[in-house]
């Protein structure tokens, strides 16, 4: 690894780039999180009060338990689906997988709205009985598990695709498909599905809108209510999130242990030809299960369309949208661009095991696994100052928040791409006299233009779907669409809210469809 890549000129350029990327991560995530730790004594006393207040402590435990249940259920749905889609001969697996995965790019709150129009008391399939289940902790678990199962499915499928095909073939020579899957494939792909468990737990714990909509008390809602509700008390909010810092650090430690050391080693997609595992007489049932999961994922969207159409929501929606879609798209696009730039520099250093890369990779993971309430309160504590109003009072704070929370997408996807690129390509350029920037722009960028495009698209969509972070500090008059729908839900007309939700779905579908289509057409 040494030699040309560590030449003084190239190293200086890389250090400058890494420092800039590090500064962005520092301002967006490390400084806000650190600012939580350097508060006045009253905040710490508030934190102690939280831990000693039985009702708040019970709320924390309840939220942790709900998140664990969501994770368990999402795994039990997503792991078998991932195996069926990626490695078996079910009929038309990829169209089913695309349908199943699409809701992963939407805020779960929109799906909850759809489920409400299906199973609420006045829903298409609703009754008093379904409504009582819907508006309960069980409802929260079911809705979030279905919403997040595609995360597990996708990571398991990718994990299986990245395994060396000969590991599976060596097992197929000796054992039946079920034994191959349970004893060889799933254990070998463990880093992928364990990582998915961390991601789902993190998303479930951060989720604010779904529990609030279903009137189930959770810890992030307690933080939110102290930042802008009837219980306005920002000092208490600070106290409430301090214990969650510990949770974030614990999740980071687990991630490092489970996946950190191997995350760059198993991401290359298999290149060999491999027959799918034959399901024999179970093929029909398995195909049915996969397609049922696909329709389950899109059922709430159908219900939203029904509600919007039946109440004239589409015709009124234009007046309610305002500038929210533009705010969403513009802030998400700027954030995604910064995320990709950070991802290239940090991902490169992490993939090549160069100094500082691993640390900044960990910082990006920490900002993602930290519950959104922690990062949000930290951003408020750091940026809500008179001298920084030009950022905090503008859409710029949304960009700062998005970059902090979703930088991990750029760092990990681009790091994985670069890890798959033979080091010799860069070393040859370095030996020819190219510095870091020239290697980055003349070798890595052209080589991975499509991958970089996909990373940008992924970051864009995750910024678009954000609600739990933006709702804590969106500037006046600059609501992203997700926040607009969330705030309207309480008092706005149902058909209009359904139509706005569908507008968000359409915006996401168009972005994914157009961006994905353009990138697929581009030569690799």
């Amino acid at each position, binding site marked *: 690894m040494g030699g040309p890549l560590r030449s003084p000129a190239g190293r200086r350029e890389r250090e400058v780039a890494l420092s800039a990327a590090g500064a962005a991560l520092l301002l967006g995530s490390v400084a806000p999180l650190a600012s939580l730790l350097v508060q006045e004594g009253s905040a710490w006393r508030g934190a102690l009060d939280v831990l000693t207040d039985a009702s708040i402590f019970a709320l924390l435990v309840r939220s942790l338990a709900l998140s664990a249940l969501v994770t368990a259920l999402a795994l039990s749905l997503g792991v078998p689906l991932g195996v069926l889609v990626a490695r078996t001969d079910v009929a038309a697996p990829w169209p089913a997988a695309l349908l199943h995965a699409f809701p992963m790019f939407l805020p779960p709150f929109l799906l909850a709205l759809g489920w409400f129009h299906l199973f609420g008391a006045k829903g298409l399939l609703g009754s008093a009985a379904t409504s009582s289940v819907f508006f309960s902790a069980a409802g929260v678990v079911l809705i979030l598990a279905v919403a997040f199962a595609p995360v597990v499915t996708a990571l398991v499928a990718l994990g299986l695709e990245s395994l*060396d095909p*000969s*590991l599976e*073939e*060596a*097992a*197929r*020579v*000796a*054992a*039946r498909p079920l*034994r191959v899957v349970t*004893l*060889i494939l799933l*254990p*070998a792909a*463990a880093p992928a599905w364990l990582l998915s468990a961390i991601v789902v737990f993190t998303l479930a714990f951060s989720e604010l809108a779904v529990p609030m909509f279903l009137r189930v008390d959770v810890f992030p809602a307690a933080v939110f209510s102290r930042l802008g509700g009837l219980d306005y008390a920002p000092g208490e909010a600070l106290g409430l999130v301090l214990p969650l810092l510990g949770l974030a650090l614990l999740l980071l430690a687990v991630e490092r242990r489970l996946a950190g050391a191997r995350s760059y080693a198993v991401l290359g997609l298999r290149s060999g*030809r491999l*027959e799918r595992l*034959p399901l024999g007489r179970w093929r029909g049932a398995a195909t049915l299960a996969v397609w049922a999961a696909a329709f389950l994922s899109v059922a709430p969207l159908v219900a939203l369309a029904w509600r919007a159409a039946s109440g004239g929501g589409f015709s009124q929606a234009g007046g309610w949208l305002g500038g929210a879609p533009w705010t969403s798209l513009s802030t998400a696009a700027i954030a995604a661009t910064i995320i990709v730039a950070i991802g290239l520099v940090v991902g490169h250093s992490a993939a090549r095991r160069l100094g500082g890369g691993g640390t900044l990779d960990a910082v990006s993971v920490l900002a993602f696994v930290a519950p959104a309430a922690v990062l949000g309160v930290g951003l408020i504590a750091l940026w809500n100052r008179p001298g920084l109003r030009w950022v905090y009072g503008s859409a710029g704070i949304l960009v700062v928040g998005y970059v902090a929370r979703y930088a991990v997408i750029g760092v990990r996807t681009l790091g994985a791409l670069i890890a798959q690129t033979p080091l010799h390509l860069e070393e040859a350029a370095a030996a020819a006299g190219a510095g870091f920037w020239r290697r980055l722009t003349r070798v890595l960028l052209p080589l991975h233009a499509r991958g970089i495009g996909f990373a940008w698209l992924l970051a864009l969509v995750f910024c678009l779907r954000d609600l739990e972070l933006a709702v804590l500090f969106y500037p006046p008059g600059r609501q992203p669409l997700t926040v607009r729908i969330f705030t309207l839900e309480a008092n706005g007309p149902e058909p209009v809210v359904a139509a706005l939700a569908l507008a968000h779905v359409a915006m996401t579908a168009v972005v994914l469809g157009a961006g994905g289509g353009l990138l697929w057409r581009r030569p690799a």
Partner: protein
Amino acid sequence: MTAAVALEGVTLAYGDRKALDEVTLSVAPGEVLALLGPSASGKTSLLRAVLGLAVPTSGTVRLGEEVATRDGCLLLRPEERGLGVVFQDLALWPHLTVEGNLGFGLAARGVPRREAVGRIAAMVRRVGLAGTERRHPGDLSGGQRQRVAIARALVLEPRAVLLDEPLASIDVDLRRDLLALLRELFAEGGTTAVHVTHDLREAVAVASCFAVMEEGRIVQQGALDDLRRAPATPFVGSLLDDLEGRMPVGEPGGEPRRVP
């Protein structure tokens, strides 16, 4: 005598490209056949067709008295064929110990636990891996990993073992040791084997019979003397040149000659 492994008119195509083209080949019980050929000549495709990991578009694959594949139909699934395999990259399951790697196939084939433990212990000793039973592949040296892969194939007591260039990319001393081990193991067990290689020296060290593939076809099959007597193609000639230390015909300065 019925062949242990037989291919009759086997064609295997990937899209428009024929990886195997009307291949006919048989391996007698207890025979070790070396399958030679340049890169992309179809050697690995032939092994995959025998293993059931690829289904030929036409032709028949027989294993003893059983028809395993006929005209595009997989009649015996890979796990029902009773074969052992050593892949070029070894394909040791990284999450299982040495014992676990050897025991996986035995458990899958319903070998009673007590018998399996005995067979694993005997095989581990036989290949010189005693003391490594609880270690994972990542904790072993390159040579030890090669031995685990060989042991994993042979502990199943397969009707035939197929080796796909298992000794490629290892150093000369280790290759010599492993060739000796393979020769001994094949002889002790009366094992039927197909050993894929592109190196005739390696082939001669373990095999009694040779088949040469080019462009998806078997161009010559027989004993080493048959190959020497009438090499069917320039490639066969070059293999023999390499074995006997001759400068190949056509090389600069090139009449055939022996190196002193």
